């Protein structure tokens, strides 16, 4: 018994020493980033790949000596896609002096918008939250930093127009979507574009959890017979949609999936890359391993004598994690530079984020320009298509119908 107690005391003492030692070693220049994740909740298929991407990029930056002499410490908290734990996570980040935080999840972003503004800590929500959060005047501390659903819808229509020979007049486009607020959000933009471009649009809602859509697909392919399909599905639903469309013989080259219907895992679960030949995806971060930064991360692992993690093979989601981390680091770098090398506070990091421009990380990050008014950075996307067993870039960074999106943003801002 006493030996047991003693050994635990030993452990406790070691912990305390280690903690103290670590505290002293990094005491001079350390910056804390908060990162919310979903590694165990309903969207764990995203979180378990995206978050390692984030962590790896930060580890890479730290292994090269940090940002302008500052080491970065990431505090990661799993919010399980629930709102109360997200609030707790934010308060924890604030307590530990985080200068910025990466949010995870649409309801969590909604629940934190106000708190971020009150606490003056910026939060990034790429692919989450409402499209109107792109308006930096309305949500000063919320940064989507990636194409919103509106911008994605605009880009999807622009791509369809290109694919269908430059005109959409008299064409038919089917919009199949997950029946929740995120799924309905692009509707306003799509309806507007249908009027402007003169195409006929019909919508097909898929109720949660979206594992059964035989009726909708039959309706689309058998009755409506569209020229193009825009698919906005989440979770396991994209795989089901690919499989069903393939089964009905619809050409997948006439289908485009928005950002959460576009990871390798979605396509592989539909029966493999071979089955989905021609399927188009919209991406807000570069895909594949052909980027210097990805090579650097691999080299970092090799230098430590380890194999690169298997998450790296799921490049769509992994690279999104890298993109988020890279933009966080870039915001910090801008802030430190603006302060002449001193450690910035969260408001200065926000200004740093708002001065990101011309930072592309070898093509992984779009040529975005984040400003005080535009927290989306322009709404840039790429189209990647399944060709010969992998995703291939078919359309470089572009913005779809930017003026229409801006019109909607302005209209939304005037409503509130």
């Amino acid at each position, binding site marked *: 018994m006493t030996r047991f107690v003693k050994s635990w005391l030993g452990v406790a003492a070691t912990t305390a020493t280690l903690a103290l030692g670590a505290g002293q070693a990094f005491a001079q220049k350390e910056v804390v980033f908060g990162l919310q994740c979903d590694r*165990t909740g309903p969207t764990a298929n995203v979180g378990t790949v995206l978050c390692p991407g984030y962590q790896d990029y930060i*580890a890479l930056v730290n292994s090269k000596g940090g940002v302008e002499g500052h080491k970065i410490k990431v505090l990661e908290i799993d919010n399980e896609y629930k709102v109360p734990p997200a609030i707790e996570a934010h308060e924890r980040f604030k307590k530990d002096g985080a200068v910025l935080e990466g949010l995870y999840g649409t309801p969590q972003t909604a629940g934190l918008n*106000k708190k971020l503004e009150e606490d003056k800590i910026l939060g990034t929500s790429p692919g989450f939250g409402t499209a109107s959060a792109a308006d930096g005047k309305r949500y000063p501390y919320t940064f989507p930093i990636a194409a919103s659903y509106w911008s994605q819808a605009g880009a999807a229509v622009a791509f369809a127009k290109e694919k269908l020979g430059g005109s959409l007049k008299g064409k038919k486009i089917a919009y199949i979507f997950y029946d929740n607020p995120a799924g309905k959000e692009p509707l306003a933009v799509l309806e507007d574009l249908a009027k402007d471009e003169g195409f006929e649009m019909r919508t097909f809602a898929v109720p949660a959890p979206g594992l059964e859509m035989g009726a909708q697909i039959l309706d689309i392919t058998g009755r409506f017979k569209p020229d193009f399909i825009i698919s906005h599905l989440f979770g396991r639903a994209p795989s089901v949609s690919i499989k069903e469309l393939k089964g009905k013989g619809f050409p997948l080259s006439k289908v485009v999936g928005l950002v959460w219907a576009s990871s390798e895992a979605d396509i592989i679960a539909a029966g493999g890359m071979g089955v989905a030949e021609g399927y188009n995806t919209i991406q807000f971060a570069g895909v594949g391993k052909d980027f210097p930064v990805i090579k650097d991360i691999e080299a970092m692992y090799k230098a430590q004598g380890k194999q690169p993690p298997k998450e790296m093979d799921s490049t769509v989601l992994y690279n999104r994690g890298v993109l988020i981390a890279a933009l966080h680091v870039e915001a910090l770098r801008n802030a430190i530079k603006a302060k002449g090398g001193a450690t910035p506070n969260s408001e200065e990091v926000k200004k740093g984020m708002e001065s990101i421009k011309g930072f592309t990380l070898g093509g992984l990050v779009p040529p975005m320009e984040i400003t005080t008014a535009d927290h989306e950075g322009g709404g840039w996307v790429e189209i990647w298509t399944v060709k010969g067993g992998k995703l291939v870039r078919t359309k470089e960074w572009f913005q779809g119908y930017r003026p229409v999106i801006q019109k909607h943003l302005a209209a939304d801002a005037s409503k509130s």
Partner: protein
Amino acid sequence: MFHRESGVFKTTYSADMALYPLPIAKWTVAVLALVFVVIVPFFVHEYYLSILNLIFIAIVGALGLNILVGYTGQISIGHGAFMSVGAYTAANLAVKLGLPFWLTLPAGGLMAALIGVIVGMPSLRIKGLYLAIATLAGQLIIEWTINRVPAISGGAQSSIEVDRPTLFGFSFNTQGSLYFFLLFFAVIAIVATLNLVRSRIGRAFVAVRDQDIAAEIIGINIYRYKLLAFAISSFYAGVCGVLYTYYFGIANYEQFQLVVSIDYLAMIIIGGLGSVLGTILGAIFVTLLPIVIRIFMENVGGLFFTTAEMANVISGLRLGVFGGLIIFFLIVEPEGLNRLWRNIRSYFRVWPFSY
């Protein structure tokens, strides 16, 4: 709560029903009040206040569910939806009519009570698993309505942003001030429930739970009391939803989905069905356990895992330990944390002369 006389000396019904069984109980309450009103808010870091705030909201919702499930024996898995009814009612009133929180809060509760009575009507004819499915239908219908009716949900995003609650020009916009705001309602909910369950209504609820035919024979109108239980329970849920709305600053569709109903059921089952103290313990347990596990692992886990592994380990361990502890507690004491607490207390009641 923490103390007991050394035997049973009660000779009258009123003594048995008293809120304060011993004079010292009043002092306990006074000390608790002192701790929570004076000491905690001024000496505890804001971070811990934010956790307490989440617990306070959870207590209000869990008490409501326990009145229905624990005291009246009517199973409901539509609690999350009733919260959303309260949340959207209050948010609409606050945004469209500009009403203050002291009007929107009861309005949200009343609207939830009304919807609760409608959803609870099948309870007049069915019980048990059948009723669970009927309330599940209620949950899904309410979710669908909020998703699909922009007049209620305020547009495609189904979100309505509300301002912070204000009282006489004072805005509750920090964790510290929200602490008082939420503590106030949590205390009201606790006191109201304590009084409810020892009143005629509360006893009628228990009679309906234990044997509804017998209850009817001794003169309890079970239709009335079942619907009343749904109304009261949904009122609490509605208020809980309003509190969430003001705490988050937004009423959002995805905050009140089925998983929330399940979380609240977990709280009252872990805490103890049909017990106010158990409800509070359950709400604390479910809110706090993940945080405690994470903080523990952050401090100790570094000895066994690398930083990269740690994120996955913490997430996985939290789910594992959470599930394991639920099973453990329910095997050790099927009646929940409340019974566990009472066992400990009765052990010490005769300590050191137990036999």
